[in-house]
């Protein structure tokens, strides 16, 4: 599954990391452009028009968040933030500033590629999706039916709605706020404990039906992800 001639821009000040990412991405079929400075990175986005940006937050010339904000002012290019900072605050801040996903260094190569594929999939013009498959899990969006190992799992409307949002964004992190908005609309932002209860029920139901719940991952302090693989 090699993406055809996609361009990835790597903005990171560590030469070693750039070199490694270059090798990994190239093998995956990406054209890779490297750059070690934030300002340069912003102009490279304009010149190269990459299909995806991998951005480090600790840059020597400017703050990574600032780079992200500047790019977002005029570009919708998917951005994956890869940083050694592992606090939930930083992650949320990066996602709020417009990052599509966040990875903590050191990371696993397979995981990185899976994340890139996921955000790539999301950025493609949306075709009508009417079903979703992941291992034993099958969702028929038209019939609003969920099956695991070909057996129907009975979900409440809220549980179904949550699973649907996660499936549509599969592989990509969905923040708590996004989840709550999708389910309760804009006026239900203080419902994080309810969200947790519903997700807990959903998790138990899927788990009881034989789905490996490790695919339904919680990122502490950020949100949930329906993972492509258990990495």
């Amino acid at each position, binding site marked *: 599954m090699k993406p055809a001639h996609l361009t990835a821009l790597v903005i990171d000040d560590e030469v070693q990391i750039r070199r490694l990412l270059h090798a990994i991405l190239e093998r995956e079929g990406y054209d890779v452009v490297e750059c070690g400075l934030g300002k340069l990175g912003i102009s490279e986005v304009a010149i190269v028009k990459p299909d995806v940006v991998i951005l480090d937050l600790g840059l020597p010339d400017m703050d990574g968040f600032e780079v992200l904000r500047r790019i977002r002012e005029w570009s919708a290019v998917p951005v994956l933030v890869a940083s050694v900072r592992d606090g939930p605050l930083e992650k949320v801040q990066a996602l709020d500033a417009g990052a599509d996903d966040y990875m903590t260094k050191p990371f696993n190569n397979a995981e990185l590629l899976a994340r890139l594929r996921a955000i790539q999939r999301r950025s493609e013009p949306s075709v009508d999706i009417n079903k979703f498959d992941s291992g034993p899990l099958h969702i028929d969006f038209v019939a609003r039916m969920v099956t695991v190992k070909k057996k129907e799992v009975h979900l409440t409307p809220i549980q179904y709605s949550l699973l649907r949002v996660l499936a549509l964004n599969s592989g990509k992190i969905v923040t708590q706020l996004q989840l709550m908005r999708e389910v*309760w609309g804009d006026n239900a932002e203080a419902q994080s404990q309810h969200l*947790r209860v*519903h997700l807990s029920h959903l998790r138990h139901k899927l788990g009881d039906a034989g789905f490996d719940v490790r695919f339904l991952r*919680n990122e502490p302090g950020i949100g949930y992800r329906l993972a492509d693989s258990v990495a």
Partner: protein
Amino acid sequence: MVLKKDMQSAADSYPAAVLHGDQRLSTSAQYLWVLVINTLVALVGWGIVPHVGYVVVGMVFLLAGIFATLHLERGPLLLLAFLNVLTWDYFFIQPVYAFRFEKLEDMLICGMSFLVVMGTFLVQLKQRDIAERRHRIYTTALLNVTQSAALAMKPSQGLATALRTINEVLRAETALIVRNADLKLPQSADPASTFQPALSEWDVIIRCYQEGLTTGRFTSVMPQAYATWFPLRTANTVMGVLGIRIPAKASMEFSMQQTINAFALQLALVLEKEQFIHALNQAEVEEASEKLRHILLDSVSHELKTPLAALQSATDDIAQNPDEAIHIVPELQSALRRLRRTVDNLLNMTRVESGDVTPMLDWCDVDELCDAAVELIGDALIHHRFYLNVPKNLPIVKVDRALIEQALVNFLLNAAMHTPSGCEVILRAYMQDQTLMLSVLDRGPGLPNMNLDDLFQKFVRGTHAPAGGSGLGLAIARGFARAHAGEATACPREGGGAEFTLKLPVETLDEFTDETCPPYSPCH
């Protein structure tokens, strides 16, 4: 105890020394003096009676008796008064050489002068009694001050008790200013003080401290001050200043000043002792931290260098035998995992030590949390019989998931490292009232024979601990638990093995059905 004994004997001798400081005569000498005084006065009276009359002679006898009250005890004094009356009556009152009275007033004068002498004696006795009682109070107070200040567990508490005692005894207010380690006075009085000196008072205080003199009110140095300041002087140095403020109309007697000086000396000695102890502790702490630095260096360099060595030789091997590289990869991965854990542990320990752990509480599914922790330890427990015992009906709880996950991971890795393969390890979660209990139980060799609390000290390792491990895992788990106002404990497991538990007081969300939720409003 030596100090206490000395104080006791001082208390016994102190009032006696003051009261009987003038040389008291022995009883027989006193009786001799009675005869001498009586004879002398009689002779003088005999000489002057022709010129002044017998009534004046009676007055001389009375005066002699009153003076004698100052030096004689009760028995001799009684005798003197009695003899004086008899002598006067026999030799001077008409009829002379007879014990009879002709006039009623003579008899009355005799009786009254006898009563005056004895009355004067009683008044003096009473005054002595009062003085003695006051001294006893002062002495007891002094003893209390010394004991409370010297024997208290916390110096600050002892000082507060000592000052309170002084206040009660002197009916005064006190301020204590203890010098800092740099020999300078602080900007404010000790918290134990019952009044804070006004700004204008500080000149007086500094003068007192610098010159070691009593200054302020009732003294010749700056008497306009509203309190009196006594230096806390020891043989070597001035430890600070003690301020005494008594009511505006009261006066400070000499005995009171002396008592305060005694208080000041005791406080000074105690403070000096505290300072010595403090200096000694400081030295001990420095030595301990030096030792800790060594252990840190040893343990951390071991934990960093071992995986580095593995990486080095593995990569060298790959460079030489590229075809065999695939067999080396697991070694590389395991070395990396170890390196990563050590770095994470060091960073987490630094966070705990610097007090930088503020839990970001959020609602969290305990079941999910335990699953995540198990996932994080990778294959560490793959050779153990590992069971997860997490009931599904646990409420949703509010914790910092990342921190608790890490604490659990550390418990699990600890169990993995200290138990033989094939051993049973259980991760168990349950609620006890409002406390979330997360336990890791094993059937391993059990806990080392040492204070179990020490296991949670950093760099402390069990006596028979196998090689490896930084000695930080449990300390971090405890740090994270405490950041949640909880605790991490270890105890022997019933039936053999060990049990490590995180006890976390948590806010819980009771289970509710979907009907009680906010209404569902689909957006699509």
